[in-house]
C-alpha cells in the first residue's frame, strides 16, 4: 500500500526515530511503512493519520486507487 508518511514526516521536520517514539513503534517500523514493506494495523494507521491531522485515506492509498 502506498502512503505519504515520508512526505508528511519531512514536512514536520521529524526523524523516523522521533515519529516512531511519538507513535509508540520502532524507527525500523516507520522505515518499513514508508517503503511500503509493511502495512500498519488499522489502529496504528488511524494514530498516524491523526498525528498528521489527516484522514487515513489522505495518508494511505490502496494500489488500485486512481487519483
Amino acid at each position, binding site marked *: 500500500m502506498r502512503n505519504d508518511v515520508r512526505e508528511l514526516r519531512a514536512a514536520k521536520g521529524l526523524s523516523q526515530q522521533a515519529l516512531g517514539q511519538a507513535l509508540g513503534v*520502532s524507527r525500523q*517500523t516507520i522505515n518499513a511503512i514508508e517503503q511500503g514493506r509493511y502495512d500498519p494495523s488499522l489502529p496504528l494507521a488511524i494514530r498516524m493519520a491523526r498525528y498528521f491531522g489527516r484522514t487515513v485515506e489522505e495518508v494511505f492509498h490502496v494500489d488500485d486507487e486512481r487519483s
Partner: protein
Amino acid sequence: MSTMRGHEAARTRRWLVPGLCVVAGAGYAAVFLAHHRPIAAVIGAGVMLAYALVLVIFSRRSEAVALLREDGPDERRALITTRAAATTLYALMVLSVIMLFVQLARGADPGAWGVVSGVGGFVFIVSIAYESRRR
C-alpha cells in the same frame, strides 16, 4: 505513575531474555558438573553467556538481535516474532512426523517422535478451534 510502571516493564522485558540465558548457562554448568564433566560445563555455560552478551551488546545496532532480546509493544516486531515462531514450529513438526514414519518403517518404537507428533497435532487442532471462535 503508569508511565513509570511502563518504563519498569520495558526494562524488565529488556533484561528477561539475557537473564534467562544466564540462568540456563548456570543450569548447564550445574548439570554437567554433577555428572563430573567440567569441560562440558564450561562450554555450556560459556555458550549461553556469550549469547546473552551478544544480545546485550548488539541489540541497539541490529533489529534482528533486538527481536531476539525482546519483541516489545511494536506491532510489526510482534508480527515478525509470531511468524518466526510459527515457521520454527512448522519445521519441528515436519521433522517430528518424518522421524515418526522413519521409526515406524524400521519397525521400531516411535518413542518421543510419536508423543511430539501427537501432542503437536492435538494442540494445533485445539488452537484452530479456539482462535476461530475468538477472532
